[in-house]
């Protein structure tokens, strides 16, 4: 279980990194915290010829408040989001969710941008940022583009990233003072991958009533709008909403996803 021989670059600027990532003469991959790519390298599931380490690029490490949204650099670690040295506009969503990602050792290195780019359906940010209505800023040699989370995650390990592009930053909208949220995931053990994730955001001032069923066999299932809540959030209503989605591959999966969502909603209602 040793990686194949590869070259390694650690550029200091985003432009230099994008230049390297656009090379077509070698198989090139970006790496940040290496918490998913590292094992894939050692298992030889990934065999790049050049690895571009983007963690020394200052602008990807920044967190700043831009009006009514928080901009988080792609290489900000889960640990930093957990520890909270930034103006949290999410009423605790970011630090609370960061604190339950895997183990602290993973959080010390793993990054929010890396997690999104990897796009494991069980990843916390994939589902929570969908619920929060975040946008992803993608950078390439051709410039930048911004896509909403619902268009960024396309499926299992599938994103809107094109060859040579990386996640540059994430825009998280500020929640209103009366916003309430809930988050529940079903894991076999502490730090393990989720089997069913429920994420809920109710923000009446902004007209948001959103439920997300994550850790499915596809992209997160979003139930937007008041329909579910008006129906009293019964288990049957939830199951009806999830029917036919990647959260309903088999009866036990559907049941588990329904329960995860129910428990996340219960946090909002309590």
């Amino acid at each position: 279980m040793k990686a194949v021989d590869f070259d390694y670059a650690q550029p200091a600027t985003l432009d230099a990194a994008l230049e390297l990532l656009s090379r077509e003469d070698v198989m090139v991959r970006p790496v940040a915290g290496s918490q998913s790519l590292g094992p894939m390298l050692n298992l030889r599931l990934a065999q790049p010829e050049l690895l571009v380490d983007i963690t020394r690029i200052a602008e990807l490490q920044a967190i700043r408040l831009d009006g009514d949204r928080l901009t988080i650099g792609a290489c900000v670690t889960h640990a930093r989001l957990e520890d909270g040295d930034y103006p949290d506009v999410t009423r605790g969503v970011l630090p609370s969710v960061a604190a339950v990602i895997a183990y602290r050792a993973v959080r010390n290195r793993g990054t929010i941008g890396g997690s999104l780019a990897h796009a494991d359906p069980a990843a916390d940010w994939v589902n929570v940022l969908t619920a929060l209505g975040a946008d992803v800023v993608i950078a390439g040699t051709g410039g930048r583009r911004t896509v909403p989370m619902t268009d960024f995650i396309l499926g299992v390990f599938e994103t809107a990233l094109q060859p040579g592009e990386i996640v540059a930053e994430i825009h998280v909208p500020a929640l209103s003072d009366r916003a309430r949220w809930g988050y529940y995931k079903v894991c076999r053990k502490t730090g393990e991958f989720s089997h069913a994730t429920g994420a809920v955001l109710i923000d009446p001032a902004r007209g948001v009533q959103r439920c997300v069923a994550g850790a499915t066999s596809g992209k997160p299932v979003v139930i937007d709008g008041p329909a579910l809540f008006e129906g009293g959030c019964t288990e049957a209503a939830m199951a009806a909403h999830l029917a036919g989605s990647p959260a309903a591959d088999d009866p036990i999966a559907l049941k588990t996803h329904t329960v995860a969502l129910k428990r996340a909603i219960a946090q909002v209602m309590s």
Partner: protein
Amino acid sequence: MGEVSTAGSGVGARVRRKEDDRLLRGRGRFVGDIALVGMKELAFVRSPVAHATITGIEIPEEHRGAVFTWADLAAGGVKPIRAVSGLPGFKVSEQPALADGKVRFVGEPVAVCVAATRAEAEDIAASVFVDYAELPVNSDMLEAVTPGAPKVHDHWPDNVFLETNVGGNIAEIAATAPVKVSRTIRTARQCMVPLEGKGVVAHWDRHVEQLVLTTSTQMPHIVRAGLSECLDLDQGLIRVVAPDVGGGFGWKGLLQPEEIVAAWIAMRLDRPVRWTEDRREHLVAAANAREHHYEITAYADERGRLLGIEADAWVDAGAYSVYPFSACLEAAQVGSILPGPYDFAHYRCRTFSVCTNKPPIVPYRGVARTGVCFAMEQMIDAVADAVGREPWQVRLENLVPPEKMPFDNVTKKHFDSGDYPESVRRAVAAIELEGWRARQKSGEPDGRLIGVGFATYCEQSAHGTAVYHGWGIPMVPGHEQAQARITPDGGLELRVGVQSHGQSMETTFAQVAHEVLGIPLEKIKLVHGDTGLTPYSTGTWGSRSMVMAGGAVATACRTLAERLRKIGAHLMQAGPDGVVLEGGLVRAGPAAVTIREIAHTWYRAPQLLPADVDRGGLEVTAGYKPGSDHGTFSYATHAVALAVDPEIGQVEILDYLVVEDAGTMVNPMVVDGQIYGGVAQGVGTALYERMPYDAEGQPLASTFADYLVPGFTEVPHVRIIHMLTPSPYTEFGVKGIGEGGAIAPPAAICNAINDALKPLGVTVTNAPMTPEVILGAIAETRGAA
């Protein structure tokens, strides 16, 4: 039998471990720490398919000389591994160290690649092309015994290593018993997962003209014997050394194909080579254990008094018979120990050791006892349910009572001592059963279901000669030997052929020696795990080392004590009567000489010795066997209270209690450690660990993301209550304790889960009891309702 103290640093003292200073500071020396000049690393080409004929192996031109196959080894005289059970009807498998024209499981080594680094060796391995003509696969033991199943070994008539029949006087009871309950029970295939995987360094020592194999093993002398057989090399030309070993649990109690290959390559290339098992190899390629299937029926009277047990048991033994324990140790144990700690008269058990296209099954901590306990203890609860009594009451009804000890059970197991029912009574009191029953009635605010479960077992350990001969194992232990040597400065060196890889022997054997000789622990040095330095031993397995090698250490030290006493008496010009050795001094009334002075006299001033001094001097090799050849029987009752979340199928352990009797404890802290570690593994067996295979024999877990082991947050705080019934047959009354912790947790947890699910009318019978299993059982019951 010696006097036992509980203070000081002798037998019974809770002293800190001598080895911890080295190990906890990361200063141990494991196979991975060894650096020899010019050493090369090995990587194996392993089969990606479960059953195939090899029709070609293509080695790229540039790597010729760096890749070797069975053709090379066979031309060099290497022979396949043969582990032949002595039981009649056993079918012999031959396991070549590298595949000989056929592969029989995914991960089987096909070729070996040599390079300066492991990464380069893996590059070479990736460039070797093997042509496989795939064959039909036996991926399930029950299908493998059906007519027309593909054969794993072409020349066998079927896929059964061995079928055994134990007992048989059951028909009348079966016809007349008032209560009859039957269950289908299964335990999953598991991996053993020691912290350190397997590893080996081999080189030829030109000075002593010996092959030196430094290997992560529990049994260096047996590895030497096996290497000698397979390499056709005199045992005198082989030295096997175990350095620090990071846990074994049975995985390192074997001769492994990779050891043979490393040894042969080192001799062939005349340079040191190392193979380090990585975690993926560990999970998919070999370290498999535990897979049992039971069809079992219990017969009882209206009070739950057992009248008989009838069972058919299948063990998925995998593709080959492992050296030295064979493919049939599991099934032989099942047949003989299924009756557990209970007293009943009628018994029949048929066992099948089934050959499949999976890695060979390896005896893992507890060996068959974990599966047997899982089956038998479910039956006790099932009987209790049938007769409407508490499961603990039915246990009391059936356990061998203390007044019958020593006791020969229905399979002629000779239980040496103990109060089995008392362990249940204490467990019921300490788990506070009444409180949990009240809580069950009132219900939980979060909707979870509370359950309490018990499991009682007795554990034969330190198996004697007759036991192993009876089980047909081609490695029968006899007298265990230890060497004790007073050093010229009055210290003590102990040399034992067993091997310490977590058992704390550097501390506990010193405590035994201290008990006899009074030499301080810091002046006692244990030398172990090296065929060049220690007496022969079958090694560390079967919870035998303290009973056997500890007994040998005590015996050797007693002989030394007598010699010290005689020389001391002479130096004090005292007659032999009334001269005693105590506290490290030889005393005659007010006069005393130290062991250091006596040692100085023997080694440096022999002119002062008595004329009739024992010519053996201050060095003794002594052999030992307990007074009974049946081994010792430690026992325990485990009790667990837990909560089942019926919506997501998850289990949280709320309280875990062990009431156990290991006889006299040499070091209670070490016994506690063995129990904690064992329970952690038992929790894994109960709730997490499963190596799944698909119908093509592909292992579906290859990393710890897929193969879950309990971690820090999943292992409960374990409360331990010790009972202390000495064995009448051993030095100090000690019993083997190394495996017990891992035996009962799956049974206790299963019984607790079923207790919790009782209001739903749901029963689970298979381990591990994952959320899928629990939710599946709930859904099935609802569907049937």
